[in-house]
């Protein structure tokens, strides 16, 4: 934590950042987000509990003057989220300063995070990643008899109270308006939200951008394991195209390119390209 504070203080004193977005400890150990502007306050900067800032950082920058530079204390997922946001022109990298914080072992375990550290680490020791398949609940939701899974997912999603929290909390979801608000796609005013459209449209829109931060399911009041919807698609992208969102700011998502334009992705035409059926009768 000290190293983080020092860097933050430096940035403000050397005028390399106009504000630091991080947690502040108030009276009675209350923790709340805060934009530090005075090096004197930095002593109250804290890094726990885990709190995702990517989206807030983006929103702050959007409503700030162009030359405003915001430093953010980022964990691995925040870092990746900001990379994706920059890729989609939602933030400008030059307005951002990253203060990297590696998650603790327990946090990594708790999230089943495969990359619990940012690109550059200023605080904390990088912990080895943990496969989400180590999570009993998630595994049972991704593997095994499909008819069984179909029932379980239907039941889980049937809890949805349509709070839009998954979308609002997601660092990547930025569209205004959003398709989930359009009655052409999702019926309005009824609970639970139409399972198939509401949740699968949401999940699919993030298929190639989800950085697996888990903000969606943390924000879900009825504890639907929303991140699990994402994982299989993330794996598919990894296997087929060696692509993982949030790692490379330069490389565009492979599903936005055809095979000729992204040969390394297209070389092995996946086996689903079935010639179809040429029976003759």
């Amino acid at each position: 934590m000290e190293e983080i504070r020092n860097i933050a203080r430096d940035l403000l004193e050397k005028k390399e950042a106009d504000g630091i977005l991080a947690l502040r400890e108030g009276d009675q150990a209350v923790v709340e987000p805060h934009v530090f502007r005075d090096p004197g306050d930095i002593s109250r900067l804290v890094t726990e509990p885990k709190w995702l800032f990517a989206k807030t950082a983006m929103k702050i920058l959007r409503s700030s003057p162009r030359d405003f530079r915001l430093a953010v204390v980022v964990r691995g997922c925040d870092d990746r989220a900001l990379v994706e946001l920059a890729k989609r022109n939602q933030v400008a990298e030059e307005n951002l300063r990253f203060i990297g914080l590696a998650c603790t072992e327990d946090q990594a375990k708790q999230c089943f995070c495969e990359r619990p550290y940012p690109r550059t680490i200023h605080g904390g020791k990088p912990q080895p990643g943990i496969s989400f398949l180590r999570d009993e609940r998630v595994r049972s939701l991704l593997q095994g008899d499909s008819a069984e899974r179909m029932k379980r997912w239907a039941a889980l999603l049937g809890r949805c109270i349509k709070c839009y929290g998954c979308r609002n909390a997601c660092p990547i979801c930025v569209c205004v308006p959003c398709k989930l608000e359009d009655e052409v796609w999702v019926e309005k005013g009824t609970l639970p939200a139409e399972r198939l459209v509401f949740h699968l449209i949401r999940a699919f829109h993030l298929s190639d951008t989800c950085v697996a931060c888990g903000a969606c399911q943390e924000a879900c009041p009825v504890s639907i394991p929303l991140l699990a919807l994402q994982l299989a698609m993330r794996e598919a992208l990894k296997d087929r195209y060696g692509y993982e969102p949030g790692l490379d700011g330069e490389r565009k998502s492979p599903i936005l390119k055809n095979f000729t334009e992204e040969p390394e992705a297209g070389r092995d035409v996946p086996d689903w390209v079935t010639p179809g059926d040429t029976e003759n009768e």
Partner: protein
Amino acid sequence: MAKTVVLLCRCFGELDGIIALDGIADRLRAEREDTSVYLLNSLCMEEDAHRIGALLKQEGARAVCAGLCAAGSKREALWESLRNAGIERSGLFTADLREGCAWIHQGNPPGATEKAKDLLFMALAALDEKKASADVSADVHPECLVLGAGPAGLAAAVSLAGQGIPVHLVERAAQPGGMLNLISRTYPGDDHAKTRIEPLLREVETNNMIAFYPRSKVVSVRGFAGDFKIGIQGPDGTLRLRAGAVIIATGAGVLLPRGLYRYGELKQVITQMELERQWIRGVPDDKRFAFIQCAGARSPERAYCSTICCPSSLKNAMRVMEEIPGGEATIFHRDIMTPGNLLEAYYRKSMEKGVRFIRFHEEDPPEILGGDRVEAIRVRDAARGKEQVLALEKVVLSTPLVPNMDNRSLRELFQLELDSHGFFSETYPLHPLETRVDGIFIAGSARWPVSSDKAMEQGEGAAMKALGMLKRDRVSALSLSRTPGEKPGHGTVEERTCTGCGNCVSVCPFLACSLQERDGRFVSRVNKMRCKACGSCVSVCPNGTMQIPEHNYRMVGAMIRRAFP
């Protein structure tokens, strides 16, 4: 809502007994107050056009939903009747009731009727939401820019000039002619290269339709098919040109086979091109020649056959036999490529003339023997499998044509595609000599290694394609279709809601989308002239900001909801 008229075609009774059209008509009338329904014997006969046109007028129809055959929507008669009633193209939506319904469900009339009803309700639902794309158009600038004055470029320039089209012929070198300036004879006719191009060169000098720009290259490109604005840089500064079409005939380069077969080490090891230059100077004084094929070609790093090397070797080998007293020529090859009747004959002729052919395996190529000069060659004959050594004085390497080094910069300028080897690629499968950008065509070895006369053929072909564009007086975005008929529309952005994520930009196969900055945020913009309405952008747009009005998401949603009521 606009008054909608439903036209149901009985197709002279084709549907009777399968689809109960009258029942459907009643159902339609009952459910939609705003529509009137007509059953007609046919919609596609010339005489129908006026009758239906009048009927639509009298109904005051703004939109038409037609239930007819698969081909129906393409029938001129139907369009004419719409025109007569002053109805927009986008005012029609058809449902295929014959092939797509009656004929494939003959065994199941109730099912077919049910389906026909649904299809019509889907069509009506879609029609309610259908919109029209705003078209844009521009005057065609009836001039053509030809890039490269090699055989392909010259042929293109001359034939366009012959059609009365002013041509700007831009050449990197000092004078026109390209590769033909460097070789002495052409195959299979064995004519002097000069004689092949002199008429073209004369034409370029004399024909005032052709402006020639030597030592020049393209530095900027703007605009679109029908009116490109191109900046070229020449000895006397840069100048701006306007052209309705562009033909890229920049040819190819030759590989210098450094390190292959001791090339560069022994000066008796030369390339085919050096030999050509030698012939131009005069008859060489060596006697025993070896020609080695595929030097640096058909290899992992250059996995293609550049098709002209075998014939050239045959040509030069025969000249050795004929013009050099006591001359001997042996061709070391992996296999001889001489497609087509003429080249096959050429091959046989060379054998009659006594040219020797020795086939070797890719994995053990011939070896040049000798200390400071070529003395002999050791080779394992692939046919007999035994090794032999031949004495000789000269080794000629057949090297492949390789992409021009400035292909990459041209690709950037014109936003074209290169194939995996670096040659310009045309839009597969149905559009030879066309690139993914309308109004830009490719010909000659820039596209693929070809012989000079093939290059000229392609030049003429490209010229004809360019002519198709240049002969129009105006070009409209909707008319720039790669497919029969007009484009169904083009991508249209709702600027207010665009998040500027750039998905459309990355996905568009025709580079029609681009991001523009609007008060601090990015907004996508579609170049309607480039857009081909494939819809890639629509399906990757995260919030439906990008739409093709003629096929917008509201239509899809409405149709889905009506598909199985």
